[in-house]
């Protein structure tokens, strides 16, 4: 079963404060002018996002995602796997680029806002999948992505192979980078015997991980 949907950019919980947190700045960015610039960039950013999300649910026996041991243990016992993708669409990347050329502060704000937005979209998608599974009396793991928690980025190949060709307009480069840039891929395990377990952050060296920062 494949599901695709659009998300309203206005509905994504984004704030200037989040941008400043990502930049390790004080909550107002240091001064009122900077705060106003980032607020304005946030307003300008939303209409440029064409947020698309989607997933496909497969029998766990149908695919081997070559996740490695850490993710493998998170997914253990899953009877089906929900392979997902979210993206801000192609226009956003170009807007970030042209903004940076005009004004580096606006460009960097646009970039960070896009990264936060696509992560928020993934959060919303995870919530929808959870609700759908719950309705069937099934549990769900957290969302897990290639390139995180010890899963090789090359795992993108198996993920994309499980999705319809050209899904949401996202393309994978020969070295497994998604185009548009502001895209996130991953998998959620589903079944009667799976549950949301903490990410294995204590044993992971990735200090700058956004999921770690969320207190995962």
């Amino acid at each position, binding site marked *: 079963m494949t599901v695709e949907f659009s998300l309203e950019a206005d509905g994504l919980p984004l704030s200037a404060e989040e941008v400043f947190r990502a930049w390790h*700045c004080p909550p107002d960015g240091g001064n009122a*002018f900077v705060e106003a610039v980032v607020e304005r960039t946030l307003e300008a950013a939303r209409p440029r996002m064409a947020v698309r999300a989607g997933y496909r649910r497969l029998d766990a026996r149908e695919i081997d995602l070559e996740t490695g041991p850490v993710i493998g243990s998170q997914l253990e016992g899953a009877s089906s796997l929900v392979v997902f993708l979210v993206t801000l669409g192609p226009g956003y*990347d170009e807007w970030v680029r042209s903004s940076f050329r005009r004004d580096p502060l606006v460009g960097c704000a646009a970039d960070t806002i896009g990264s936060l937005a696509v992560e928020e979209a993934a959060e919303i998608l995870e919530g929808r999948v959870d609700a759908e599974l719950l309705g069937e009396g099934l549990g769900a793991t957290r969302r897990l992505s290639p390139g995180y928690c010890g899963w090789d980025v090359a795992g993108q190949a198996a993920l994309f192979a499980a999705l319809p060709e050209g899904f949401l307009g996202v393309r994978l480069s020969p070295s497994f980078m998604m185009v548009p840039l502001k895209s996130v891929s991953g998998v959620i395990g589903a079944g009667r015997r799976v549950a949301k377990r903490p990410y294995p952050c204590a044993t992971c060296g990735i200090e700058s991980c956004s999921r770690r920062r969320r207190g995962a």
Partner: protein
Amino acid sequence: MTREILVELADAVAGGKAERDSPYPPERRGEDGAAEICLAALAAGVSPEDVLRRGLVAGMQRVGERFARGEAFIPEVLLAAKAMRAALAHLEPRLAKEEAGRRGTVVLGTVAGDIHDLGKNLVGMVLQGAGWRVVDLGVDVSADRFAQAVRAEHPRVVGLSALLTTTMAHLGPTVERLRREAPGLPVYVGGAPVTPEFAERIGAAGTFPDAFAFARHLGEAG
């Protein structure tokens, strides 16, 4: 007079005052910005080399040092860079003729299969602010295109950027290609997953975790 106007220029850059009409910083509304001061310095006969080194580079360096000490945050650096660019737009045509005033050329690009360019763009911006001429080849740049640019631009340094471990796999072959093209030309690599051990293994000249550390190193090296 020369000294004063250059101090004023460095102050405008460090303070992020780009042009007279710029709204930032609010307390300097209506005052001349880096663009006007740069033009005034050139009109007063200050050499483009001094305007670059003792004005723009000095101003950017001051912000860089404050950032490194944790006294300035990213937005201030970006505002300073905007002011630096506003002045550089006037200086650039004069500098082309006065190549001696610059540190030399850096060729930058994001490797094949990779379209992430924010890190590379920041590196380019900071190197410009440190007095380098920057030739930015953009994203998804093949080893051959890097080699072509090396032939055409005669850079003193090349910088390659990659975001993911999988796109990082293109760094090694690109470094190798450039070593054949221009033996002895230092090729630096960078991006989130790049470590010093990896850089050494592929025969790169080195790596730096951020743009300022890279600019400082290049400054010290030459």
